[in-house]
């Protein structure tokens, strides 16, 4: 059974059709990277997978549950899908530890000790356990994003979604976040990642989706999509991203 199955997904914002019939699957344990120019709909696709955006039509099945079914318990479905945002979105009024425990306690009804144990394990995993008692505003962007990853992991998700997780970071902080993601991948986490980090996609992804204009133009293993793209649009995009100075229009 696929972890995520997307069938003929359409999404419009007013007159603007952002997704124009997307079909994609993420197998269990797979890392799928979505690449493409801005405005291609890749973030919208990701946000549809946990219904932060409501699709206009199409089907999304996450671990056997059809979340696009109007009768689906969306809160229950989201519990099994972790999400990491570009802007981290840590809860500013809570300490790092409370950021990780609040949903465990309020949603999963874990007791305090249990939730804190899980939280500390995950903070340890991403290397910010020493920051458990401070407020997010005092952390660097890289630390905040690692806390955000730990927060999502604390819910025990079956799938992790990453929406351009390094795009808001200073260049020297990108590595620490990608390192954590790489580690998650080797542990067998199912991941759907929207990213501009071609190096990461090439080395970590099992599959790469290239999107442009609301459709999947090309998909396959990175050795194919990134190293030997077949479509003209993919080639143009990669040329610009990989060699931004001598970009060929």
């Amino acid at each position, binding site marked *: 059974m696929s972890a995520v199955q997307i069938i003929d997904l359409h999404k419009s914002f007013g007159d603007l059709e952002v997704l124009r019939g997307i079909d994609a699957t993420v197998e269990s344990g797979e890392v799928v990277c979505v690449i493409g120019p801005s405005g291609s709909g890749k973030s919208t696709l990701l946000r549809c997978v946990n219904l932060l955006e409501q699709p206009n039509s199409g089907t999304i099945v996450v671990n056997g549950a059809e979340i696009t079914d109007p009768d689906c318990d969306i809160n229950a479905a989201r*519990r099994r899908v972790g999400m990491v945002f570009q802007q981290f979105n840590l*809860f500013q009024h809570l300490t790092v530890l409370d950021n990780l425990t609040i949903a465990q306690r309020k949603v999963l009804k874990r007791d305090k000790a249990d939730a804190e144990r899980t939280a500390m394990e995950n903070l340890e995993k991403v290397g910010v356990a020493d920051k458990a008692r401070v407020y997010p505003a005092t952390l660097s962007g890289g630390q905040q994003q690692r806390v955000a990853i730990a927060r*999502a992991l604390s819910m025990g998700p079956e799938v992790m979604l990453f929406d351009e997780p390094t795009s808001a970071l200073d260049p020297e902080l990108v590595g620490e976040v990608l390192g954590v993601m790489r580690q998650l991948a080797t542990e067998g986490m199912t991941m759907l990642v929207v990213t501009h980090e071609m190096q990461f996609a090439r080395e970590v992804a099992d599959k790469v989706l290239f999107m442009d204009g609301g459709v999947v133009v090309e998909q396959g293993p990175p050795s194919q999509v990134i190293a030997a793209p077949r479509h003209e649009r993919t080639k143009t995009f990669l040329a610009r991203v990989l060699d931004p100075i001598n970009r060929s229009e």
Partner: protein
Amino acid sequence: MSHGQEAGPAPRARLSPRKRQRISRGVQYAVFAAVVVAVALAADWKAVVENFADLDVAKEAFPELITIALKNTVIYTLSAYVVGFVLGLVVALMRLSSIAVYRGVALAYIEVFRGLPALVVFLIFGFGLPVAFPGMKFPFDQYGTVAVALGLVASAYMAETFRAGIQAVPRGQMEAARSLGMSHTRAMVSIIIPQALRIVIPPLTNELILLFKDSSLVFVLGVTSLTTELSKFGGDLATEYADSTPLVLAGAAYLVITLPLGYVVRRLEAKQQKAR
């Protein structure tokens, strides 16, 4: 070349900007001082002291000024503040609801109670409601009526403050909460409202100051010697002794409460400015 200065360097101003500014400032201070002195000389100080600072009359105002009047003002204000706070939060949430009916009701409520003078609301409560609902009584008598009437007025303003605060919390906070499986309500309670409250503490404290002053309108409901508040108390005593000293004392009692609150607001605002 008859105009030699056209070719030469610009003529030096007779006064530098700095000097001009200093002179202008000096004139402003002089005018201000002159006005103060003129007012001070024109006033009949003997009459002022007699009428506004008569110690014998002042003695008569104590201890009731504190034990009854100030106490009641504080009770009226705080109880109305609690009612206004709870009601305001509810109305703000209705105003932001996805359900159009709730939004409409909340908007109408805010517009009506924000538009009506507090005095009119008090008159309606004091004399309109007993006619419409004979036998109806608020709990705690006068205290209950004031808490509800003044609370309604306050809640309209507080609802708008809460709404602004909730909208000032970045959208990503709600998205993050929802992505962790929280329901909309749970996310509001645990994530959004706590952050919104932090944002609106300074304006809400201002609202408390305004409410202290509005509590003086209780007099239109008719108060007894036990339920009187600062303004009414001061006014009555001033009439009794034909001397304004009690009013000065009542005014001072308001300031004893509002000045520290004003200080707290400034501190909180400065703190928020720094946190940004």
